[in-house]
């Protein structure tokens, strides 16, 4: 039974009780507890169920590497799955539930999986995908969906209410890890004057040195740590950050750090997580090392923990996994746990040491306390169903014959340590296998390199392989000095600090315990606790031909869980190497990828949610639209009114009303979003002649001309009206969505190709509010508000423009029409836009002036047969397809797209061409519908001969109208063709089609009499 010790716990405050709940049960811990230590202290040993076999699981580790103790935190809106109990600081009211159990945590039906060991072996998924096929869909998948998995996904209908943000920082050095190595690095860097950000993922400085009884300069490590932090806090160039994990290192010294600002003390409207986006010249990874489990049968049972985690819990929190703890090890370090437990008054029946000899200082100290040390021994099996009852001992070099049962309620295991080389590896730093210590460490000759080919990450202390506290500080100082020298910064001449800590003898690599364990035992030795991968699975993979560690990883799912194999990778690849008869370095490691440990989606999104999710561009008249019930549609980053429905009016009715109001009276359109680009210079005309398919240089000041712009591949990319302002200056109108793109296109050609042409451009889209006053009564309305410009047909004819004052506003008025009606597009300074709109509305009341939206605009242009970029074009359409040959100059030597349009496929008469389409029954053709043709293609699909590009109900004509691209379309006027629909047909009957007649695309006022008045 796990328990809280009567005293001790350097990180907890026993005077402050904290009440929390686990699976609805009210429990009490102390301020400073993690959820794991509080649960352990409350006697709660089982914390979850495993992924595949639903085996009961308890805490194994004491930090971010924890594979088992994952919980759901919070509920409802704040529910979050897969949170590690070992890194969750408890607070009043914390609610946690265990994961993947049914019907209850202590009695779970899925345990039956484990009784059928043939079920779910390595490669199970791949094998069942292949045959028998129906089994996967009908038998395995439903069962696995029901039983496998970890936490519960958040309810998609609920939104995370918490606040997140990001923060950009620029610095000389990021030091990852605030253990003694990180502090030593920061002190040295601080003295050099470097700008430093020191991040520690936990809530405490100093790492594990205080737990391990390290003495620095003759004082307990804790004293040195406190002094170091005090010193660093006084340095202006050092920025200290607790609860901040360096999650990833990327090219160009880009570092992501994940700060859990208020997880430990949640408050409304306080930032929960902050993602630091840091540019650092160098990174020092003082990330320490992680202990490895040992692979013996039953090593996943609740109560079996890493030796270091056992002493962390005892020393830091006064919690213990049991009262009688057997220790099993292949190294001297685990003996520290025996000493800590004995000191805490707990019983250590024996230390089981797989090595033939255990004569180092620490084993001696353990023996001196009267604790049995059994060398050359291992664990054959752990007895107990939902916890540890006894450890059965055997010879390590045997097959597991039990020599002795040792009654115990917990086991502390240590298979040695692995440096945390993740940050070194994220950007491609290479590793060396150090045989003597059985670990991978950074290869100093192959660091991750920056934009200059120089190394920019260095490991310091245990992360660099200097595991023994005696070497850690020295290594940290050396690494920091190397980094500072690379940065051309001064280094100090301070001597290495004196660290006193017992000498340790060499470890003996032990990958399977006992060495000659048979298949039955190997099927109970867990490598990856979170994904339920065992020694037998990796060996099976090897037998089935998997030699690459990357393939084995995917086949067995070893190291693919949320802990990314922090405990399992080295053991797994060592077992694989053993099975293949290869050396470990030949097998190699899998790739270390960021983030080091999971970070929240909220932190990645940062502030970009709600109103800040995406910038919404607003016209000067946007407020009026919002106040008057506009129904909006997205156009680029703008939200344009689609229509202005009145109370009780459908959108379609509103659109029809708006169209009729324009056709019969006067309508007002907010056209401010239209792109407006000034093009000026002696070469401006020549430049526009290259950009447009027609001639612009011949345009006279005071006149407008419609033009088409193509990409150099010949495809139509934008259209619009160009107005010549003066001899050297043009105003180019683009589509709403095209403004930024076309401006960039212009600059691209000017800067990269025609850099010697004298042309300047400026995107002035937002400098103007543009209002289209459209309809037979448009002129009457403008004359009413008064203008100092002659707006008559004679003075300002169609496709002319003029400048002056209208209604007292500074205005530029263009006689252009996208609706076929008499139309004045009037640009006023953006700052005057709203007032001008209000004035037009007020004065227009007597003419029935009606604001209209984009849908009415679209329908009216379709009635006139005007194309729309994005409807009639899709990146594969050339102007010739659209019957726009009149707008393509034959006289010009060149324009962008000209050559491309001469290629055989572009000039092919078989290309589909634009026509109007009129349904025989007056209905509206479905958008995107295909014109059916006879026969089938090589894939057995029905042939097609055209498609619908725009289709609307025309209230003007009282019927459906459409435009489409049809093979030989313009030559087939009057012909009837069939279009497909998605309407369901009766069973067995042919699919429903709609018949339509090919007609001219100009449905309304083909002579253009109405716009030219």
């Amino acid at each position, binding site marked *: 039974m796990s328990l809280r010790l009567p005293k001790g716990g350097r990180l907890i405050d026993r005077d402050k009780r904290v009440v929390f709940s686990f699976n609805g049960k009210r429990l009490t811990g102390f301020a400073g507890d993690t959820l794991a230590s509080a649960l352990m202290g409350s006697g709660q040993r089982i914390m979850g169920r495993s992924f595949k076999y639903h085996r009961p699981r308890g805490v194994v580790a004491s930090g971010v590497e924890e594979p088992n103790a994952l919980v759901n935190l919070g509920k409802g809106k704040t529910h979050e799955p897969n949170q590690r109990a070992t890194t969750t600081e408890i607070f009043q009211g914390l609610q946690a539930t265990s994961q993947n159990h049914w019907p209850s945590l202590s009695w779970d039906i899925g345990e039956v999986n484990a009784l059928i060991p043939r079920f779910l072996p390595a490669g199970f998924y791949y094998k069942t995908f292949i045959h028998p096929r129906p089994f996967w869909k009908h038998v395995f998948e439903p069962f696995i969906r029901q039983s496998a998995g970890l936490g519960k996904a958040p309810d998609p209908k609920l939104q995370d209410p918490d606040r997140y943000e990001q*923060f950009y920082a620029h610095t000389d050095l990021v030091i990852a890890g605030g253990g003694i190595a990180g502090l030593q690095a920061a002190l040295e860097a601080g003295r050099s004057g470097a700008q430093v950000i020191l991040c520690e993922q936990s809530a405490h400085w100093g790492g594990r040195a205080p737990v391990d009884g390290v003495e620095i300069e003759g004082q307990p490590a804790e004293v040195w740590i406190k002094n170091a932090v005090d010193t660093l806090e006084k340095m202006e160039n050092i920025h200290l950050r607790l609860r901040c994990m360096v999650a990833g290192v990327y090219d160009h010294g880009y570092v992501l750090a994940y700060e859990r600002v208020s997880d430990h003390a949640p408050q409304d409207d306080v930032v929960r997580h902050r993602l630091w986006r840091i540019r650092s010249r160098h990174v020092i990874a003082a990330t320490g090392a992680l202990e490895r489990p040992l692979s013996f049968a039953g090593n996943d049972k609740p109560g079996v923990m890493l030796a270091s985690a056992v002493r962390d819990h005892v020393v830091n929190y006064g919690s213990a996994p049991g009262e009688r703890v057997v220790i099993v090890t292949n190294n001297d370090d685990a003996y520290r746990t025996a000493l800590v437990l004995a000191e805490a008054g707990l019983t250590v029946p024996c230390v089981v040491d797989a090595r033939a000899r255990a004569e180092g200082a620490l084993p001696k100290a353990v023996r001196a306390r009267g604790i049995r040390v059994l060398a050359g021994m291992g664990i054959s099996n752990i007895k107990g169903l939902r916890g540890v009852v006894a450890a059965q001992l055997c010879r390590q070099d045997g097959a597991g014959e039990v020599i002795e049962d040792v009654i115990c309620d917990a086991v502390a295991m240590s298979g040695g340590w692995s440096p945390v080389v993740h940050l070194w590896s994220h950007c491609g730093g290479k590793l060396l296998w150090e045989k003597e210590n059985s670990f991978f460490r950074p290869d100093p000759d192959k660091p991750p390199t920056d934009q200059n080919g120089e190394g920019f990450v260095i490991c310091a202390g245990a992360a660099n392989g200097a595991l023994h506290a005696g070497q850690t500080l020295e290594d940290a100082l050396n690494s920091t000095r190397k980094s500072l020298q690379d940065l051309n910064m001064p280094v100090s001449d301070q001597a290495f600090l004196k660290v006193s800590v017992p000498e340790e003898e060499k470890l003996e690599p032990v990958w399977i315990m006992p060495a000659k364990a048979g298949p039955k035992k190997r099927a109970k030795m867990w490598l990856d606790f979170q994904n339920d991968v065992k020694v037998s699975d990796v060996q099976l993979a090897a037998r089935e031909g998997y030699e690459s560690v990357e393939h084995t990883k995917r086949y067995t799912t070893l190291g693919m869980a949320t802990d990314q194999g922090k405990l399992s990778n080295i053991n797994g690849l060592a077992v694989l190497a053993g099975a293949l008869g290869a050396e470990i370095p030949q097998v190699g490691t899998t790739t270390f990828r960021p983030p080091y440990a999971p970070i929240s989606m909220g932190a990645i999104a940062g*502030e970009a949610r709600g109103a800040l999710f995406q*910038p919404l561009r607003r*016209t000067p008249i946007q407020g009026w639209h919002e106040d008057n019930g506009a129904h909006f549609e997205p156009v680029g*980053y703008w939200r344009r009114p689609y229509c202005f429905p009145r109370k009780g009016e459908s959108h379609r009715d509103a659109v029809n009303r708006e169209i009729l109001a324009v056709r019969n009276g006067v309508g007002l359109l907010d056209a401010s979003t239209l792109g407006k680009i*000034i093009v000026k210079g002696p070469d401006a005309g020549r430049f526009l002649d290259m950009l447009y398919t027609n001639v612009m240089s011949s345009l006279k000041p005071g006149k407008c001309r419609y033009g088409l712009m193509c990409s150099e591949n010949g495809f139509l990319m934008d259209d619009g009206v160009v107005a010549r302002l003066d001899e050297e200056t043009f105003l180019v109108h683009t589509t709403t969505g095209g403004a930024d793109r076309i401006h960039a296109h212009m600059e691209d050609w000017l800067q990269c190709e025609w850099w010697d042409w004298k042309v*300047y451009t*400026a995107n002035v889209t937002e400098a103007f509010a543009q209002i289209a006053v459209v309809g037979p009564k448009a002129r009457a309305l403008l004359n009413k508000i008064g203008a100092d410009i002659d707006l008559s047909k004679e003075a300002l004819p169609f496709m002319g423009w003029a400048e002056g004052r209208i209604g007292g506003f500074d205005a530029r008025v263009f006689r252009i029409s996208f609706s076929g009606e008499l139309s004045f597009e009037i640009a006023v300074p953006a700052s005057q836009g709203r*007032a001008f709109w209000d004035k037009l509305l007020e004065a227009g009341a007597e003419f029935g002036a009606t604001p209209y939206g984009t849908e009415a605009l679209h329908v009216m242009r379709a009635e006139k047969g005007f194309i729309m970029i994005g409807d009639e074009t899709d990146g594969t359409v050339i102007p010739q397809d659209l019957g726009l040959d009149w707008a393509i100059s034959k006289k010009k030597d060149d324009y962008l797209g000209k050559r491309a349009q001469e290629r055989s496929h572009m000039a092919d008469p078989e290309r589909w061409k634009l026509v109007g389409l009129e349904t025989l029954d007056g209905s509206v053709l479905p958008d995107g519908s295909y014109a059916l043709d006879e026969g089938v293609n090589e894939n057995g699909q029905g042939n097609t001969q055209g498609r619908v590009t725009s289709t609307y109900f025309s209230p003007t004509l009282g019927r459906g109208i459409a435009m489409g691209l049809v093979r030989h379309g313009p030559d087939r006027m009057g012909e009837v063709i069939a279009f497909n629909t998605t309407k369901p047909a009766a069973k067995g009957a042919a699919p429903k089609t709609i018949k339509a007649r090919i007609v001219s695309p100009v449905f309304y006022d083909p002579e253009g009499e109405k716009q030219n008045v």
Partner: protein
Amino acid sequence: MSEFSVSALDGLSVGGSVTIREMGRQGMVSLRADLSAAAKAVARVTGAEMPAQRKISAGKECAVAWMSPDEVLILCAADQAGKIAFDLSEALTGQHHLALDISDARAMFSVTGEAGAIRDVLAKITPADIGALGLGEMRRTRLQQVAGAIWFEAGDEARVICFRSVARYVFDLLAMSAREGGTVGYHG
């Protein structure tokens, strides 16, 4: 017709760790030209020297900011922008250039408060090295998802400009970054 004119957010302001205020109508003139050849004309019209790369130089009731190797931005009173643009065009007659009153295409904000807090608020929305941005320097950058520029008017006041259509977005960004409960304490 200035009696009708309003800026993008009409002087909206909000408090927090710093104070954010939309500054109303602000004159801005964009000049594109060969900057060395245009220096004389710029000096004559604005009284300012041609600014060096990324710098701002002060003129008569206006300032000239370097925007790119062939572009400067003149900041002036709203009612002066038209005249300055016109005068520049006059002074540069015969020389290829583009001078435009773009006051209405932009919005400007002031961010006032304690020096470190201002930088912390800005560092939440721009990847530029805001700690290194000194007086007299303009930094064109990204304000999360939109383009903008930042400079310090004084130690306790930064200015932010952006396009008019996204003024609301930038205001909301600044307001969110300054909202209580998000103190960083990074910049001194």
